[in-house]
């Protein structure tokens, strides 16, 4: 079985400052990795995904994430955040050959003006 850990439940960041949201996973088999964003009263929207290849993945809205196999991490970063980035962010995995997403508990990103 796989699991996903997002250690930070809430992250406050000043506007235009950089941010990193942490995600660690555990799995005995290879996985695909995802970051989703959830704005208030909306469904989940895919930010980026890692399937294979380059370990640095670029997504929408200026976000990027780096897959680190040795540390089993897939941290999300943005060099300069905006007020509109205020949302809940979920890291998720799919076990290779499976279909269902396993999510972390989420990180609420709050941007301080």
């Amino acid at each position, binding site marked *: 079985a796989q699991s*996903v850990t997002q250690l930070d439940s809430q992250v406050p960041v000043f506007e235009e400052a950089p941010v990193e949201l942490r995600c660690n996973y555990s799995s005995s088999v290879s996985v695909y990795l995802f970051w989703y964003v959830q704005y208030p*009263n909306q*469904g989940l929207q*895919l930010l980026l995904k890692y399937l294979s290849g380059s370990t640095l993945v670029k997504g929408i809205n200026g976000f990027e994430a780096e897959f680190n196999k040795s540390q089993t991490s897939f941290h999300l970063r943005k060099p300069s955040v905006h007020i509109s980035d205020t949302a809940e962010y*979920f890291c*998720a995995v799919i076990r290779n050959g499976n279909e*269902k*997403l396993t*999510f972390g508990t989420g990180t609420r990103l709050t941007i301080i003006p």
Partner: protein
Amino acid sequence: GAGVSQSPRYKVAKRGQDVALRCDPISGHVSLFWYQQALGQGPEFLTYFQNEAQLDKSGLPSDRFFAERPEGSVSTLKIQRTQQEDSAVYLCASSPEDRDNEQFFGPGTRLTVL
């Protein structure tokens, strides 16, 4: 084009009532998923369809939960004899065959059981 739609968006039920939640996936999407998101938690997998076949229902918490997708498009999640612990947001997602496991989510149905 239209995304995944779900109805109703909000549902209040008295304990013991049956409820039915509807999901309209993106047209042509083969796979359909249901997830349950409790307050302050990440979504948790309930069940998965490929066309009309229910291939995985390992996440359904009890036999009070039942899902169907009879014609391979619209899906209904039914909860019988609702309990307070069923209160959650129920998310539906669909996925085409060739998008590398990317799932497109609907806005969810918020179920409150009193």
